[in-house]
Every structure is written in structure tokens, then in C-alpha cells.
């Protein structure tokens, strides 16, 4: 019985919970509408906020893009300026190289002049004295000093320019004989070969070119001497020997101008 009463109470309670009144529904609807309104307001506010953010972002992006463009332009200009500067530096380096060449020529002339003046300095003539003084070991009168390598080179070059090839050659050979370790010795030997060539003495010029290679293989004139020797062999119809010499220029002096010319020759004379 007690169990039946409890069941009835529970059923009644359940029924009372399931049957809401119309007023409840209206309130609920009002709540829902209010909630929707709030949501809509919140959405539009968020949307406005988002739009604002988007505008800001777009503005920032535009600013950033402008900055990027300006920076890029600056970079381009900088790159261009750098390239121009580099080009200018390269040109200036080349000019300095050429000027160095000019200066070296001038220095060579000055050295020659200094040596010439030094050679002109002669000790004062000895005063007449008792011969016993000299016999007793007095300093003998100084002899004029021999021309130095620069002076000899300059004199020989002058003769070469004038077309006095034999005189020029004598000067160059004297330089090599007196100053074989001078910086100018390889040049002098080379120019003595050139003097022979100018006279049409091919055999002697070829020998002199070979001597440059033998005695001064590391001299700056060595590739020129070898290249000229190769051309001479080619002119004599000694093609295989010429080719071997050209190949040697290319291999042993790869950085020289003559190596470029030799490679070109080898390419067109296969």
C-alpha cells in the first residue's frame, strides 16, 4: 500500500513538472529574444571590432608595404651605388696600375740619371807629391765608377729607339755580363733578343729568347720570350715545335697575356 502511495506521489510530481504554463512559455520566449538580441549586438560589435582591426591591419600592411617598397628602392639604389662604387674602384685600380707603369718608367729614368751623376763624381785630381808618398801606400786616385745597371739599360734603350740595334745589343749584353743578378738582367737579355730580331737575325734572336727562358724562367719577360720563340718557329714552318712552345706558354705561364694568345693560337691552328 505504502508502495502504491509513493508511486502516485512521484507520478503527480512528474506531471506537475511537465505541464508549464503559457506565461512560462512567454517569459521563456522573451528570454530567448533578449538573448538573441544580445548575441546580435555582440556579433555586430565584434564585427565592427573585426572590421576596425581589419582596417588597421590593412593600413599597417599598406604602411609596411610602402616601407618595404622604400626599403627595396633604397636597397636597389644602394646596390647600384655599390656596383658603381665597385666599378669606379676597379677603374681607379686600373688607372693606378697604368699610373704605376708610368711611374715605374719615370723611376727607371730617375735611377739611370742618379747612376749617371754618381758615375760623374770623380775624386779630385792628385796633387803633385813626392813619388815616395805614393810608394808608401797613399790612396790611389779614384777611377770613374762604371755605369750602373739602370744607366746601362737606359742608354741601350735609347739606342734601341734610335734604331742602332748593334749598339743597343752591346749595351744590353754588357748589363747582363756586369750585373747578372740585377732585376734588369732578364729584360736586358730579352731586349738583346729583340735587337737581333730587329736586324732580321732570326737564329740569334731565337737563341737569345731561349737563353731568357734558361737563365731567368721566372722573370716577367719569360712568357713573352717563349711566345715570340713559338711565333718564330711557326714562321719557319716548324709547326709541331711551334705548337709545343705555345702549349708550354699556356701551361707554364697560365696567368700571362701570352697564355691567352697562345691558347687562341692553339685553338685556331689545330
Amino acid at each position, binding site marked *: 500500500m505504502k508502495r502504491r502511495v509513493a508511486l502516485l506521489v512521484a507520478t503527480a510530481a512528474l506531471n506537475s513538472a511537465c505541464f508549464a504554463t503559457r506565461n512560462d512559455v512567454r517569459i521563456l520566449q522573451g528570454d530567448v529574444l533578449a538573448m538573441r538580441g544580445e548575441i546580435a549586438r555582440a556579433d555586430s560589435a565584434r564585427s565592427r571590432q573585426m572590421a576596425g582591426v581589419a582596417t588597421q591591419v590593412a593600413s599597417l600592411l599598406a604602411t609596411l608595404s610602402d616601407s618595404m617598397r622604400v626599403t627595396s628602392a633604397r636597397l636597389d639604389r644602394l646596390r647600384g651605388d655599390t656596383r658603381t662604387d665597385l666599378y669606379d674602384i676597379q677603374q681607379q685600380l*686600373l*688607372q693606378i696600375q*697604368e699610373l704605376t707603369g708610368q711611374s715605374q718608367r719615370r723611376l727607371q729614368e730617375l735611377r739611370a740619371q742618379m747612376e749617371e751623376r754618381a758615375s760623374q763624381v770623380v775624386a779630385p785630381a792628385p796633387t803633385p807629391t813626392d813619388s815616395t808618398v805614393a810608394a808608401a801606400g797613399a790612396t790611389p786616385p779614384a777611377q770613374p765608377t762604371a755605369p750602373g745597371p739602370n744607366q746601362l739599360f737606359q742608354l741601350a734603350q735609347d739606342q734601341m729607339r734610335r734604331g742602332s740595334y748593334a749598339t743597343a745589343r752591346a749595351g744590353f749584353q754588357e748589363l747582363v755580363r756586369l750585373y747578372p743578378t740585377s732585376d734588369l738582367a732578364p729584360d736586358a737579355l730579352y731586349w738583346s733578343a729583340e735587337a737581333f730580331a*730587329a736586324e732580321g737575325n732570326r737564329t740569334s734572336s731565337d737563341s737569345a729568347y731561349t737563353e731568357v727562358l734558361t737563365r731567368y724562367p721566372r722573370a716577367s719577360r719569360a712568357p*713573352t720570350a717563349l*711566345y715570340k720563340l713559338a711565333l718564330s718557329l711557326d714562321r719557319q714552318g716548324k709547326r709541331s715545335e711551334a705548337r709545343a712552345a705555345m702549349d708550354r706558354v699556356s701551361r707554364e705561364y697560365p696567368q700571362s697575356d701570352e697564355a*691567352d*694568345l697562345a691558347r687562341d693560337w692553339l685553338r685556331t*691552328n689545330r
Partner: protein
Amino acid sequence: MAMLAKNRWGWLMVVAVVWLVGGWGRAAAQDTTFKEGVRIGLVYSPGTKPGVLIMPVGGDMADSIHTILSRDFEYGDRINVVALDPSAVAEATTAARVGTGPVPNYPLYAKLGVQVLVQANVTAVGLHVSVHNVVKKQIERVRDYPLLGVPLSPEWRLALHNAADDLEFFVTGTRGISSTRILYESGGRIWQVDADGANAIAVTTTGTAMSPAWHPKATHMAYMQFGSAGTQIVIKEIGGPTRILSSTPGGLNTTPVFSPDGYTMIYAHAAESGADLFAVNAFGSEPARRVTVGRGSDNTQPTFSPDGRRIAFTSSRSGHPEVYISDADGTNADILTTFNFGDQSYRGSPDWSPDGRLIAFQTQIAGRFQIATISLRDRSIKQYTSEGVNEDPSWAPDSRHLVFTSDRGGTRQLWILDTDSGRPPRQLTRSAIRRGARLGAWSPPLRPH
């Protein structure tokens, strides 16, 4: 003197004419003593040029022959042509010309500053010329010069120029330059003109041609011609056929020049990596051999030394064009024209003088090109022009005169200057073509055929 003393009027007339026409005679006769007081005027130095009087010529074309001979001597700049009115010396010259009667009045001529008398008569075969030494009072030379072709034709004029040059050699020891011609470019064609400005004729008829150059024996000429594959080097026999130098590949092939022995030709070939000079047998078929190592720079406008062992050329290897010098095989390259650090003006168009002493070139001064020479002995530079833009010098065979392009007259034309006397340049061409004339190349001495 005795002859003229009989006729005082004749003597006065001669003096008056000499006074008016001027020249060496006037300078020699000038009173050089200074009077007391203020004096304004000029004192003329008689100079060292020998005074030559060309007596009135006998025979056909007499006036033309007299005019051409006088002009040739004048343009040579080594002879002072004494101008006298023919009637003033008629008495003395008539007797001498026909070879009868008294000899020329040598003392009178000596007084007028004449050292040499040239008597010329037209004969059936040409020109019979006697040269009198006024100082020694005797005839020193008699020679006949054949005059070829129709009077005033190019051949006839060349024969007469040849006579003038031979006479100049006899008088001065240096051959004249009138029997030469100059090649140049005008309107895309190659033209030639006599050294006195006569007989300008086009030698190419088709295509666009530039950079003319003479063969040392004047048997051929070379030039560059625009074609479908760039520009090629053309060798033309004078009065004969043309042929294209087979070794020139596609691309730009420019500024050809013959070696002094006439067998080798050097020209510039331009590719993407710059322009280099190439040497080739001008009349063979061997491959060309490179002679410059430009490494991206431009190397053009070669010119040979008279012995053929060296070349000068324009190169931009130092950053901007300068004149360089090297052996003919390309070794020993060295800058010739000096420049200061940072100097951006440039120099180019070298031409080696036939005597080997100088190289003429164009140099930029205040933005305009001017003609200058550089001595190969001490590298001293001498400038010759300053008016207008002056370019492309080319030496005459006497190593004294230069032909060059100048716009000083309003249009580009060829002009000739004398490097010794400093006399104002004379205009050689008067091309009516809009772009005028340029790129002159002076021939070696020409002989009449």
C-alpha cells in the same frame, strides 16, 4: 741689271710689283734699320724657305700648269713661291724661255729673293722643265715629264703633281705631297680626292662603307662594309675588283690597316666580350691570329710603325680609351698617352708618322676632340687645333702634314694642317652631303700609270 738700267720705268715697275705682291722678296728687301722716334709695325723674318719663281709657262694649258705648280709648291709649305706679274719680268723671261739671247737676269732675281727659277714649256710629249740656280747663275737641271691623258683629267693632273713633287725634292731635298690622294667617308660611301682638293670621286657605289685604308703600295684599299652578318672587311684593288676578307667572322669587323710590307692586315673584331685586334695575311686564307688581350675592353684603330714591328691602337683597358703601343704580335703592350688619376677624358685614333717619330691622335680637351701628336722619343705632347671638334688624323707621306675631320666650317669636312709652320689649316673637301666628310686616309706617293 745692265739690261734694266736702260729702262728706268721697267725697273721701277718691277720694284713696285714686288712691293705690292709681298712674299719672300719683300721680306728680303725690307729696310731693317730703325729710325728715331715711335714706330708701329711688324718686322717680317725672311725665313728659311727657298724662294722659287715659276716663270710663265709656254705652250698649251700654260696658265693651268703654272697655277697647279704654284699651288703644289705652296701647299707643300717648304717653298716660298715668289709671285711676280709676268709682264714685269717679260723682258728677262722671254729671252730665257726661248733659249736665245741673254740669260735670265740672275742678280735682279737674287735681289727679289729668288733662289730658284723654274722654266717649263709644254712639248709634244709632256713638260720640259729647266731649273736655274740663281745664286750660281746657271741651269742645274733639265728634265722632261710626260703628261698623260686629257688635259685636266685626273691622270694628267697626277702627272703634273708628280713633276711638282720631283722639283720640290730637287730644291728642298724632300719630296712634295701633291701626287697623293686622300680616301674618306661621306654619306656611307668611300670617296677619294687629290691632295689639292680636286677630283673628288666616289670609289664605292653600293652599301654602307667606313674606315678606308690604303695599301702601302697604293695598289689596293681596304674598308669595312655593313652586310647582313654585321660588318666585314673588304679589300678593293684600285680600279679593279673587290673581295671580302675571308677570315672575318660575323659580328663587327672594323678599322682595317695594312702592314708596311703590304702582306699583313690588322683589324678589330668586336664580340660580346669586347673588341680585340686580329692579324691576318691580307691575301691568304689562313686563320686570323689575335694580337690583343683585351679581357672585355675594346681595342680598335690599329696603326703600324714604319718598320712594321710595332703597332699603336686605342684601348679601353685602363677604364677609358687611351692610345697604347705594343709589338705587332701583341706582346709588350704599354700605355702611350699619359693621363692623370681620375681623368675621364679620352684619347684615340692614333696614326703613326711615316718617319716613325710621332704618333698623331685625337684628345678630348674640355669635352671636344682636338688633334695632337706624341713624340715616341720623350713622350712630349703637342696640340695643333683648338677651334671646333677635330678628329681622325692621318699623316701625309712627308710626316709633316695631317688630314683630319673638323666641323670648324659648320659641317664636318676634311682639313689639312702643317705641323711645322703653324699655318692655319686649309679646307680639303666641300662635300654637299648632309653628314659631310670624315675618316680621311692619306695615300702613299702615287706614280702616274
